[in-house]
């Protein structure tokens, strides 16, 4: 794990990780600090049970975007600055090298998301929901699945695609993932060839919204659909096969 630890240290030492994370936190807090008069099931929209899932949507969206930004250049950078030479000659298998760099990507993406996630704890305290803080811990691990999917996908794509193409493709998959339920409704509404096409895309691409929703359910104490979480973990597993399929021809 030396490569992962060192790559991770390099990312963690970069101030932009924290700057972006804290900016995201401020944005999340600003967005959720207003007092609304609308009520859902008798609770004001600004109440904790309503606001927490909304914050999670924001954290998932910002965290995912950050995961793409943090993961896209790690592997190409290693080859451009030829750090790869001193790794290859030491007999490190490519899949291991890329997997360790991806672990660093996932870890740094989770740190940035974690900084924003701290906003939820602030919200829980402000809304006198201190008990809910404990539930936030397992919820973070669920949300982490969504962030990890985006990070691993970006990393794998960056092995064989130019950064721009990998970024567009990862961004597209991410957008479909967070809009999964909306696109599902659209597919059912329009029907026909287009509707079926959207449905096929939704089967292939991970339901990031669903995962984030389960994290929200954990926080609010609602029922959790474990199937969605397992599907998310399976997606990560499938994506890691990419390390064995996609290889660099030269260092």
């Amino acid at each position: 794990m030396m490569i992962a630890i060192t790559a991770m240290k390099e990312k963690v030492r970069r101030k932009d990780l924290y700057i972006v994370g804290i900016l995201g936190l401020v944005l999340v807090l600003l967005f959720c600090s207003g007092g609304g008069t609308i009520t859902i099931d008798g609770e004001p929209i600004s109440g904790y049970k309503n606001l927490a899932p909304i914050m999670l949507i924001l954290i998932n969206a910002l965290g995912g975007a950050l995961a793409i930004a943090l993961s896209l250049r790690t592997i190409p950078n290693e080859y451009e600055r030829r750090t790869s030479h001193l790794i290859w000659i030491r007999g490190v298998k490519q899949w291991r090298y890329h997997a360790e760099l991806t672990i660093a990507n996932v870890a740094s993406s989770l740190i940035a998301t974690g900084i924003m996630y701290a906003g939820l704890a602030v919200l829980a305290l402000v809304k006198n929901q201190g008990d809910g803080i404990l539930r936030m811990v397992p919820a973070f691990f669920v949300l982490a699945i969504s962030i990890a999917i985006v990070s691993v996908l970006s990393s794998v794509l960056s092995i064989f695609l130019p950064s721009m193409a990998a970024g567009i493709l990862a961004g597209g998959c991410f957008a479909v993932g967070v809009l999964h339920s909306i696109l599902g409704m659209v597919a059912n509404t329009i029907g026909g060839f287009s509707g079926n096409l959207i449905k096929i895309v939704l089967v292939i691409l991970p339901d990031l919204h669903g995962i984030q929703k389960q994290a929200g359910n954990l926080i609010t104490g609602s029922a959790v659909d474990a199937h969605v979480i397992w599907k998310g973990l399976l997606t990560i597993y499938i994506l890691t096969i990419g390390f064995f399929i996609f290889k660099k021809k030269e260092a």
Partner: protein
Amino acid sequence: MLVCKDLRKTYKDKTVVNGLSFAVKEGEVFALLGSNGAGKSTTIKMILGLVKREEGEINVRENIHVGYSPETPYFPPFLTGKEVLCYYGRIQGMSKSEVEEKAGELMEVVGLEDTKTRVKEYSKGMLQRLALAQALLGDPDFLILDEPTAGLDAMGRIEMMQLIQKLKRQGKTILINSHILSDMERVCDRGIIIKKGMLLGTWDKNEDNKGKSLEDIFVEYIGGVEK
């Protein structure tokens, strides 16, 4: 130690190595000589498996450990020199205690006794020394040095050459790529002169060179200013 036969490599339409053959014997210091763009670095990268060859054969003696010092080394900037050595040592399977001990020793060998300075504060010369130190991890039998004196000042070059001579005395086989002929003449036993990836001629310090220096031989083969 190493036999290369009919190596060929093309980038797009440009042939950078064209039917190159040579052999490096055990215990000798062998030079790859040529101007910039002659195909020296590509040849080294083919030997190390960093670049795929299109044709030819490379045979390195089995069960030997090869150390490589790159031309433009890049190390994690936030690590100290000693930490860099520990990092690469651990990657190549050395134990933590073994690598700690060896790293300190190698820092002394290459003249980088200040173990607390971070790599980002290193000069080009210090980076070259560190590159050599990481190549020496695990006590390699065969060392491949790509432009080890590039960017070094006069004193740095002299010290690097002394270090290479010391390694030679320890029995290491060394393949060096450089275009600084005076340095090569001092430390190398044999060498080949290449241009546009093709072998133009050979040089052997122990043969009768009819009073000609390596520079004279090089100019004869490559073609240069008439004396």
